[in-house]
């Protein structure tokens, strides 16, 4: 074991050599603590249980591999939605391209400003959920994020705003290495829709900590950018109070490496969390959804729905866990991960896990992997639909079951139309 440990140590030192810890202000403490966590954990290595299916190499190496900016004349996703738009270019806030950070019922600040403005809730949240989420599974890249992120937003929702907040991540430089950290606090009975889209950078490390108070709601819909060579590791840590609702959906099309982690913790009774994702990978594409849901309260419902369409050697990974602690009676936990393999070269690796200590719960999980259904394909073709179109129709139908998890039908429709167009273009 001595050799890999030394290697891990060297990898960490090499990575840290290229980073500068932001200094000054009230975030010094959480940042230093996060760095200490990271130093103790070390960077992820292939032998780590939760990195067996996804090579961490390109995510941890000191310099990112370059990624070309994907040039296209498409109108970006969510453009037709009435929204408050906030733009980051290669991980840096761009005030020129953004709307004024003003929205009734919501206060939005950059994390760089929360100390000067003495924003208590933010100081008390930064790094806290990330730290809680390090057990029992280590998430070193989230700790790295907490320590080194220089930009990001603190979003405080006290009343339900009239429109969604839309974060747009522009990728401009072929060698950008962006680290962003957002914190969101939703107060009791308030509701926010958060949209995210764009490739963000050549390499993107993003962390969001979401604290939802009793009766609060957060709807999160994200479309990760289509730049083929971009790499991303993202973490969403959410803590749910009583009767609260957290719904998150992610669409991923292209991207050579994506690792999306969702860490959900129920702390209040009668709350609900749905996390879902749909991805479409062709060729050099590796997509990993890693989910950990902890039920620590009564009568909560969690639901995980993940669908992956893979072809030409694309790889999909799903690692999903539901942990039900002893006091979390009446838990309703559900998990499904499915892949549609459009050829024999692609692969799907799934690791569903249930760990249950309460006796009065309903938990189920399932995972499937299959090709296009031949019966359905023939039926469509016998009605005159050409094979390619029929395959696209069935592929879209497969993904639609995940997209339908989005509560707002307009947002779901928008994404389905995009998917349809992208599918048609590819075939």
């Amino acid at each position, binding site marked *: 074991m001595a050799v890999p440990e030394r290697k891990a140590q060297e990898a960490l030192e090499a990575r840290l050599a290229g980073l500068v810890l932001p200094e000054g202000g009230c975030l010094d403490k959480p940042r230093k603590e996060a760095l200490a966590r990271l130093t103790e954990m070390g960077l992820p290595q292939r032998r780590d249980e939760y990195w067996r299916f996804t090579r961490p190499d390109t995510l941890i190496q000191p310099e990112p591999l370059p990624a070309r900016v994907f040039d296209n004349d498409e109108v970006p996703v969510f453009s037709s939605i009435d929204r408050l738009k906030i733009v980051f270019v290669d991980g840096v806030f761009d005030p020129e391209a953004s709307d004024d950070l003003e929205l009734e019922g919501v206060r939005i600040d950059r994390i760089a400003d929360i100390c000067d403005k003495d924003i208590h809730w933010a100081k008390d949240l930064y790094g806290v959920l990330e730290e809680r989420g390090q057990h029992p599974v280590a998430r070193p890249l989230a700790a790295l994020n907490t320590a080194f992120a220089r930009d990001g937003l603190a979003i405080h929702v006290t009343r339900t705003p009239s429109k969604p907040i839309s974060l747009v991540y522009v990728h401009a430089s072929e060698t950008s290495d962006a680290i962003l950290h957002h914190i969101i606090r939703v107060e009791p009975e308030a509701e926010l829709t958060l949209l995210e889209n764009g490739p963000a950078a050549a390499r993107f490390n993003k962390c969001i900590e979401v604290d939802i108070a009793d009766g609060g709601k957060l709807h999160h819909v994200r479309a990760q950018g289509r730049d083929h060579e971009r790499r991303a590791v993202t973490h969403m840590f959410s803590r749910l109070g009583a009767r609260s609702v957290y719904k998150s959906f992610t669409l991923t099309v292209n991207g050579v490496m994506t690792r999306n982690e969702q860490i959900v913790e129920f702390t209040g009774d009668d709350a609900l969390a749905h996390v879902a994702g749909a991805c479409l990978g062709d060729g050099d594409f590796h997509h990993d959804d890693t989910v950990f849901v902890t039920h620590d309260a009564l009568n909560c419902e969690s639901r995980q729905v993940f669908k992956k369409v893979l072809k030409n050697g694309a790889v999909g990974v799903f690692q999903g866990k539901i942990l039900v602690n002893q006091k979390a009676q009446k838990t309703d936990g559900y998990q499904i991960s499915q892949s549609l393999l459009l050829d024999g070269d692609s692969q799907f690796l799934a690791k569903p896990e249930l760990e249950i200590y309460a006796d009065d719960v309903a938990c189920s999980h399932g995972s499937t992997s299959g090709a296009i259904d031949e019966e359905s394909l023939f039926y469509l073709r016998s009605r005159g*639909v050409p094979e390619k179109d029929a395959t696209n129709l069935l592929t879209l139908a497969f993904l639609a079951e995940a997209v339908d998890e989005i509560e707002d039908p307009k947002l779901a429709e928008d994404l389905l139309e995009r998917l349809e167009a992208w599918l048609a273009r590819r075939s």
Partner: protein
Amino acid sequence: MLEIKNLHVQLEEEDKQILKGVDLTVEPGTVHAIMGPNGSGKSTLSYVLAGRDGYEVTEGTATLDGESLLDMEPEERAAAGLFLAFQYPVEIPGVGNMTFLRTAVNAQRKARGEEELSAADFLKLVRERAKALKIDADMLKRPVNVGFSGGEKKRNEILQMAMLEPKMCILDETDSGLDVDAMKLVSDGVNALRDAGRGFLVITHYQRLLDHIKPDVVHIMAKGRIIKTGGPELALEVETNGYADILNEVA
């Protein structure tokens, strides 16, 4: 219109001959019925004509208006005017019935070099045709055949036929799983489509359906061949005496 000559078919996976020289000609404006005991090859004939995988044609031809069907992809056969109403219509979760119909109609129009139907024209047409088959808006919205009863699935097949307006319609045991009322609805739907330019091949076990859809010619199929051909009275004979007499007579 449909001309099948000396058609020999075996399963691709195993060396088993299913059709052993079928000869059949359906003229425009006529309804032909094929009856026969289980395992005689009736359904295989319909699948081979529609282009389903898993069968190998070892001998013979099948043409539609002189064009060889057997060289075409299933979608090309459909665009050429062939339609198969399935014995077991397939459920397709996630694809709305309406989307399915519109995609199919427009794909065929496109393949024939015709202009696609506008959304409004399509909607008007589908509503009108659905109404005649007592198919409500909810059935049009639901995913294709998902959660449909047996009768609803068969009515949905006839709706597709009505929308696609094929030249040659093959109905594979469309009466199976239908109660009396549904049988009437389905038959009315089929009869409404009868005209001088269209041919029908109705595959069935029972005379019952032929009371509603009156055939011009009845064929008896057994062991991969058509062994007897006659008028509507042949179906009545089968109804009364079963297949045994006919089989003996031919043997």
